[in-house]
C-alpha cells in the first residue's frame, strides 16, 4: 500500500535537497491523504469562506457578489437600520436572560438530582428529551400552546379565570419571554446533564470533609463545589453562548420575527438579506458582525483556557 513508499523514499532520493522536499510530501503520505477533507474544510470553509465574507461585506453587492469596494458603507447602513438594531438588542436581552436562566436552572436541577432522589433516571429522561427535538418542533408546539384564543390562555379563560393572560407571542413587549420559555424548555435539560456530570465528578471526600467541618449543604455547593466546577461552567457558557448567537430556527418556527419586527434576531436578518432581500453586501456585513460577537466571547475564553494551561 501507499505506506511502502514511506520506507523506500529515503533510499530512492538519498542525496540532496529534492529528498527533503520529497520527504515532506511522502512522510506519512496516507495520513496526509486521509486528512485532506479536514485540511480542505479548515482552509476552504472555516478560513476561506470567512475571509470571503469579511471581504465582500465591504462591497455594495446586491444580487450577486460582484459589487465594488465601498468601505464601511454597509456597516453604516446596518446600524442605521432599525430592524438590525432591534435584532441586536433582542439578541442581547434574550442572550443575557437565556444564559443566566439556563445556567441557574440547570445548576439548580442538577443539585436537586444530586440529592439521592428516587426515579433519578426518569427525571433525567424527561428533562433531556426536548434537547433531542428540532427547534422547529419546539417552536411550533409552543406556538400552539401560546395561541391566544385556543391555547393556554383561551383554556384558562374558558375555565373561569377571565383575566388570565398568556399572550406573550402576540405581544411585542413580551415576545422575547415567549422565545425564552421555549428556548429554556429545550436547553435546560442539557445544561442540567452537564452540571450533574460536573457535580458527580467532585471527590466524595470533599463532601465528607465539609460535613465534618459543619458546612451546611447549600453553603458547600456555593462555596466549595461550584468553584470546583469551573471547567464545566466554562464549557456550558461557551456552548450556550454559541447557541444563542446562532438562534434562528426557533424564531422562524415560533414567531417568524413577529409581531412586526419585535422578535427579529441577527441570524435571521442575515438570512433574509442574503436569500430573499437580494442585498448580499448587507447580509454579509451583518454576518461579519455576528462573527465579531463570537470572537468577543471566544477570545477571552481561549485566553483563559490556553493561558491557564501555559501557567501549569
Amino acid at each position, binding site marked *: *500500500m*501507499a*505506506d511502502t513508499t514511506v520506507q523506500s523514499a529515503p533510499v530512492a532520493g538519498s542525496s540532496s535537497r529534492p529528498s527533503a522536499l520529497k520527504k515532506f510530501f511522502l512522510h*506519512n503520505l*496516507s*495520513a496526509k491523504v*486521509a*486528512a485532506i*477533507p*479536514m485540511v480542505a474544510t*479548515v482552509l*476552504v*470553509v*472555516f*478560513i*476561506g*469562506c470567512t475571509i*470571503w*465574507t469579511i471581504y465582500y461585506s465591504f462591497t455594495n453587492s446586491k444580487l450577486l457578489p460582484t459589487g465594488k469596494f465601498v468601505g464601511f458603507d454597509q456597516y453604516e447602513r446596518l446600524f442605521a437600520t432599525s430592524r438590525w438594531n432591534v435584532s441586536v438588542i433582542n439578541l442581547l436581552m434574550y442572550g443575557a436572560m437565556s444564559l443566566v436562566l439556563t445556567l441557574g436552572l440547570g445548576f*439548580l*436541577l442538577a443539585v*436537586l438530582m444530586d*440529592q439521592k*432522589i428516587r426515579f433519578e433516571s426518569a*427525571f433525567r429522561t424527561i*428533562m*433531556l*428529551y*426536548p434537547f*433531542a*427535538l*428540532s*427547534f*422547529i*418542533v*419546539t417552536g411550533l*408546539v*409552543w*406556538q*400552539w*400552546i401560546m395561541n391566544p384564543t*385556543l*391555547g393556554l390562555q383561551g383554556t384558562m379563560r*374558558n*375555565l373561569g379565570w377571565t383575566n388570565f393572560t398568556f399572550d406573550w407571542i402576540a405581544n411585542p413587549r413580551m415576545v422575547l419571554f415567549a422565545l425564552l420559555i421555549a428556548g429554556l*424548555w429545550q436547553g435546560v435539560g*442539557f445544561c442540567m*446533564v452537564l452540571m450533574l456530570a460536573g457535580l458527580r465528578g467532585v471527590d466524595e471526600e470533599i463532601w465528607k470533609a465539609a460535613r465534618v467541618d459543619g458546612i451546611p449543604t447549600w453553603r458547600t455547593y456555593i462555596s466549595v463545589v461550584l468553584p470546583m466546577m469551573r471547567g464545566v461552567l466554562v*464549557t456550558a457558557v461557551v456552548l450556550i453562548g454559541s447557541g444563542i448567537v*446562532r438562534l434562528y*430556527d426557533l424564531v422562524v*418556527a415560533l414567531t417568524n420575527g413577529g409581531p412586526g419586527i419585535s422578535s427579529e434576531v441577527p441570524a435571521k436578518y442575515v*438570512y433574509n438579506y442574503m436569500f430573499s432581500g437580494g442585498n448580499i453586501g448587507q*447580509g454579509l456585513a451583518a454576518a*461579519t458582525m*455576528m*462573527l465579531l460577537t*463570537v470572537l468577543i466571547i*471566544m477570545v477571552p475564553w*481561549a485566553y483563559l483556557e490556553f493561558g491557564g494551561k501555559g501557567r501549569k
Partner: protein
Amino acid sequence: MSQTATMTGSAPATGGNTATDPRGPRPKPFFTPKKIMIYTTLVFFTLYFLFPLYVMVVTSLKTMPEIRFGNIFALPSAPSFDAWVKAWTSACTGLTCNGLSPGFWNSVKITIPSTIVSIFIAAVNGYALVNWRFKGSEIFFAVLIFGSFIPYQVMLYPLVILTRSMGIFGTLQAVIVIHTIFGMPILTLLFRNYFASLPQELFKAARVDGAGFWRIFFEIMLPMSLPIFVVALILQITGIWNDFLFGVVFAGPQNYPMTVQLNNIVNSAQGTPEYNVNMAATVLTGLVPLIIYFVSGKLFVRGVAAGAVKG
C-alpha cells in the same frame, strides 16, 4: 487533657441509661421539608417539560370542532388518527398538498448518507490526529474546533457559491457535503479523544508487525471503536434530522427535509389553520429523534456530554 477532665465530670449523667439513648439508624421521617421542596420543584419542572409533549399528542388526536371548544388540557373525546393521515399524505405546504411524507423521505435520504460520510471522515481524522501526527496537524485541529464556533451565517453564502460552481447546489449532495463539513469538528473531537484513550502500545505493536495506515485503521481501530460509533451515530442522526437551515438553503425545494416541510405546513399554509393536523405533523417530525432518544437512553446522554467535554 483539661477537656477530658470536664467531660468525665459529666459522665454519670449519661452513663447509665443506654437503653433509652439513641440507638441504630437516625430516625428519618418520610416527609421532611427538604424532601418536600426537592420533589415539589422536580415535579413542577417535570410538568413544564412534559406539558408540550402531552398537548402535542392530545391535540393531534382531536377534531377541529373539539379544538375550537378551547381546552388544550382535555383528552380527546374520540381519539382519531385522521389528522395524522392528513398530515402525512395531504397537508398543504403552500405550493403542493402532498403532506409530510415527501419531506420524511427526503430527510431519510439526507440523513443516512450524511451520517455515514461525516462519521467515516471524522473517524479517519481522529485516527490520523492521534496516531499519525504530521507537521501542522494539531494546528489544523485547533482551527477546526475554533471554527465550529463561527456562526453558520458567516460561511453560508460563500458555500452557496462553492456548491453552485461545483454544480451540486440545490441537490442532496450539497446538503450531504455541508453536513459533513459542519459535523466534522465535533465528531473529529469525539474520535480523537476516543482513539487517544486507547492504549498506544496497540498501535505501536501493529506498526512493528508491518501494518500500514489503512490496515491499522480498518483492522485494529475500527473494531475497537463500536461504542464511540454508536455515540456519533446518535449525535449525527438526531442533529441532521433536526437541521433546518442547511436544508432550506442547500437542498432545493424538491429535496426539502421534513423540518422545512413541517414549518411550511404550519407557518405558510393558507386558510383556516388546522391545529390538529399541525400538531400531528409536529409529532411525526419529532418522532424519529424521540425514538432514538428513548431507545439509546444513557448513550444519548454520553453523546451530548461527549460533545461538551473538552479534550
